[in-house]
């Protein structure tokens, strides 16, 4: 399937906050009505449309690999967007956000768009973190904030798509160096050589070829 851009995302946050479920919910909606089943997955891709352009989102979950520094390092660096997730029913997952954010800021490229997600908004009765607290944290650290539920799918689409919109805007503003794939952005195969509006797009194919093993 052809696309104008491919954005790579990572999902970060404590274990058990529902990262892989969010991922699956977004990439494969059929798991939505399953109520008493938690299913997650570590990778998924989906096509979305922004500004009438096809954009492919690739989402990589980093769960279970925190033990290796080399791995987390490179994950952060290779992504254009990050979803930083906490669980609104577990205060400690909120408390750890700063650590995650510090890590992300240290390793990622400075343009990475980070969205803060308070997950499990369906469990209102067990809520430990107020929505306002999430909002305040996001405001303080310059993040976009949203509460979602992987179970009811509330706001899941929006979370991923809004992040993509922000990345797209940054591309339009020329903030992102799109010729540099290390930023987690790729120009679609058919777009690179022909589309004159993308500066220096020819370079992409070249660098790909040379690096191929």
């Amino acid at each position, binding site marked *: 399937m052809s696309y104008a851009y491919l954005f790579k995302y990572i999902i970060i946050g404590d274990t058990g906050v529902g990262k892989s479920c969010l991922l699956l919910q977004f990439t494969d909606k059929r798991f939505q009505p399953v109520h008493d089943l938690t*299913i997650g997955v570590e*990778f998924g891709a989906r096509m979305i449309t922004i500004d009438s352009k096809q954009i492919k989102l690739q989402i*990589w979950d980093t769960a279970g690999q925190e033990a290796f520094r080399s*791995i987390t*390092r*490179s994950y952060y660096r290779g992504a254009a967007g990050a979803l930083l997730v906490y669980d609104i029913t577990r205060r400690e997952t909120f408390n750890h956000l700063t650590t995650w954010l510090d890590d992300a800021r240290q390793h990622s490229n400075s343009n990475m768009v980070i969205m803060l997600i308070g997950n499990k908004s369906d469990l209102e009765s067990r809520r430990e973190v107020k929505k306002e607290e999430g909002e305040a944290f996001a405001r303080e650290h310059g993040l976009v904030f949203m509460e979602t539920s992987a179970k009811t799918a509330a706001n899941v689409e929006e979370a991923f798509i809004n992040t993509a919109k922000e990345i797209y805007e940054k591309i339009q503003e020329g903030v992102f160096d799109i010729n540099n*794939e290390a930023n987690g952005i790729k120009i679609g195969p058919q777009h690179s050589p022909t589309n004159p509006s993308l500066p220096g797009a020819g370079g992409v194919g070249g660098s790909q070829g040379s*690096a191929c093993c």
Partner: protein
Amino acid sequence: MFRSRSWFGGGWGRPKNPHSLEHLKYLYNVLSRNQTVSEHNRGLLVETLRSIAEILIWGDQNDSSVFDFFLEKNMLSFFLRIMRQRSGGSNYVCVQLLQTLNILFENIRNETSLYYLLSNNHVNSIIVHKFDFSDEEVMAYYISFLKTLSLKLNAHTIHFFYNEHTNDFPLYTEAIKFFNHPESMVRIAVRTLTLNVYKVEDSSMLGFIRDRTAAPYFSNIVWFIGKHIQELDMCVRNEADHHSQNRLADLVAEHLDHLHYLNDILCLNITDLNHVLTDHLLHKLLIPLYIYSLATHRRTSSIAEGSVSKILWSSSSGPDSPRLQDPTSGRVSCVVALFLLSQVFLILSHSPLVQTLAWIILKTDKSVFEKGVTKLLEHYECEKKLLEDSYEETLVEDLRNITDEEKEKLAKNPSDFVATEKPFLETVYSALDCNENDYAALFGLCLLYAMANNKGVTTDVLEQVLKPKKSFSSKDVKYSYNVYLVEKLLSIVTLACQPTCRVRLVTLEITLKLLLQLVICDGKNILMDQHRPTIESCKSQSLALLRNFYKSEEIFLDMFEHEYCDMSKSSLNVEWLCMDSAILLPPAGTPMTGIDFIKRLPCGESEKARRAIRLFFLMRITALSLNGEMETQLPLTNPQSCVQIEQALDLNNSDLIACTVLYKDGTKMRRFLVIDVMQLILVEPDNKRLGWGVAKLVGFLQDIEVTGDKDDSRCLHITIHRPISGATTNRVPLLSAKFLFDDNIRCMAAKQRLTKGRIKARQKKMQHIARLLEIPGQSGPPSPAFTGQGLYGGRKNVRPMFVSSRCPGFAAPKRDSSPGVLHRTSRLQNDVSPSSSNRSRDSSLGRAKSREGSPRMPRPRSEEIPLELIKKTTLIDMAPKISILPRPQTPRIENELSQEKEAAPTIFISEETSFIGDRKTTNDGVETI
């Protein structure tokens, strides 16, 4: 988006409950009737595969018969059959198939279910299947599948993947084929997988890894790293103008990724594997390419000659030549080599590796060097053996026989380590030459620092070169250090303290860091007499330099505090420094490069002032550390001594001005305004104790802005900016509100006191800085007091400040209980010995005199309350006068050097000093003259 299709073709017998064995049976039927993938059924197949994943997970958690059915019908074989077809849209189906497998393996909790799934070798058949890897989606799902499987590996499951009999381990061997895939996420997945595999403790599997794959895999990695750093070198060479910093940043980050990956492997401590890896790294990469690049420059030795083209060694075999058979054929420039080696020593700590490297850099002599890498390593092995053998003998016997004098001679003969006979070390040393610039010096310092602080390098290699040496003579311990290196470092420091220097702050900071490590041993400063004056003169030089900027910049005080805060936020982290590709480019002066201030040269007067401030701090800290002293003068504000929010204050006898605070959002609050020495405090009456108040908002007087209201003479607009702090970059004002007073008199009083308070608070700090800078006219040694001490600061028991000025603006201090020093409560007063309170007062007066002793001092102005008088009078009714701030007056006039126009309310100082005096009596003694 395909959900609608699921109804298509599933017309009959579809069970209502999607979570049931019946549903799986139905799906089985669908699969068996659609064994050939075609344009028509692919949507159906995808939907079926999705449903299978879901129902299997449900079954895993709820109904074991579901899994039994799946295995009984051998449904995985359908999967294989589907993926082996190369028909239209098969990639599309394959992607879902892989995702279904991902979901399965990731979500299965029941171990038995997992074993069943793995038991019939279908999974291995899927792993070795040649998917269409040119499709990036297939590639991504495939590699995720392999990675997911690797996360399931343990001592039990490994046997499903590694076949001892056939000596076959497809999961690993297939994965490493993609280790250099152009897609970074694929590479990362491969690395994750390899690490997950190595982690499994299974000797026969690890044997397979070592014997069958380690050599080719590691040599490939090494080869690619070699190729990579040549790209990096090229980039540095071509990017002298800071054009594509991004590309360089990526290359540097990539190199760090490589090193971290190698380190992650080495840290798993698999002896055999580490041996092979270390061997490859030393023979093929680190010595021939990294270390030998240091020596390429030896003869010309133009490292520090400024021009980049001179610095950068141009290799004869262009590093960009497409088919580099051996990365060693082209070496990299000296600066790049120093930088990369620093990274190696900062990240890797595997002892056999770093020990060898350190030894080679520090000890290799010319004769061995010329023989080449292999000989060099052999030589090292020999030396090591010799050393180990001789250890028993030498240490036990020889040393016993050597006389003290001989030992001393040995210790004092560091020329060994200076000798030009050591090509690598010589390069590092000569890089430290900053006469032209500090471009190469920074890397040389980083490398030396990294080696000296690497946990894997033992002291015997470093001793005398990078660590002080201790030798025991009969009576005492003798210390010695690398004189040559220390002199090199001192010359960098000297250059850095020159007004026109070309040394960046970061270079100076790391130089000082290294210097301290070299000359402090067992907590003692072992700096030789010949070197001590250099540090002292550098320190004076730094003072002199900063004096030029004192007050030349209007916001000097803010700059001073900001720089201090910035600096104390985090000390220099060399590892982070070496992650920054920007330092690889020749030192820049302009902030437009986006390079951190400390990593470039100052641009313009304002930045020169900043630099001078930093320089002053750095030299000050160094001098203090060398003398084993603690900082007692900085920061200018001591946060511990400030009033905190919610602190209860005894405000009996204090000047309180009632006001209503009107916030922008419309909220109103009734508060009392208290103006302390350094702080503005808004209090609310304490309902527990009469006359007490609870601080609801505190701000520093130095950070306030006060403006009157054009339309209402009872109103003031007050903005309190946040104090400079490292914690937040948030510069939203602490408070920005309209204050409404009872009448215009009180309003004016408040305005005057706030305005004056601001000036005084700032003056006080400036005077403190002046004392630190030893600016003439500041008599006496600097006070140990932090200027931040307010009246209420740091106290648990709070004392009255001003006597019963019930009505704000009316100063009616009744101070019989607190003679002279306003902030003493009667309670506390008893605790303070008369001598200490006298002493402190004296000292404060002394200072006041020197700084701002104005000729008018002895004449008490009507609105001021001379303390000496207060002492004797029980009550002075000054009702008609507006009290700005009472202040102590001294009857004597001494030392009128200062030309301050304003007679300072010196009471601030007396309070602060005596307050300290009662906390730190030791310092107080010093202070008193």
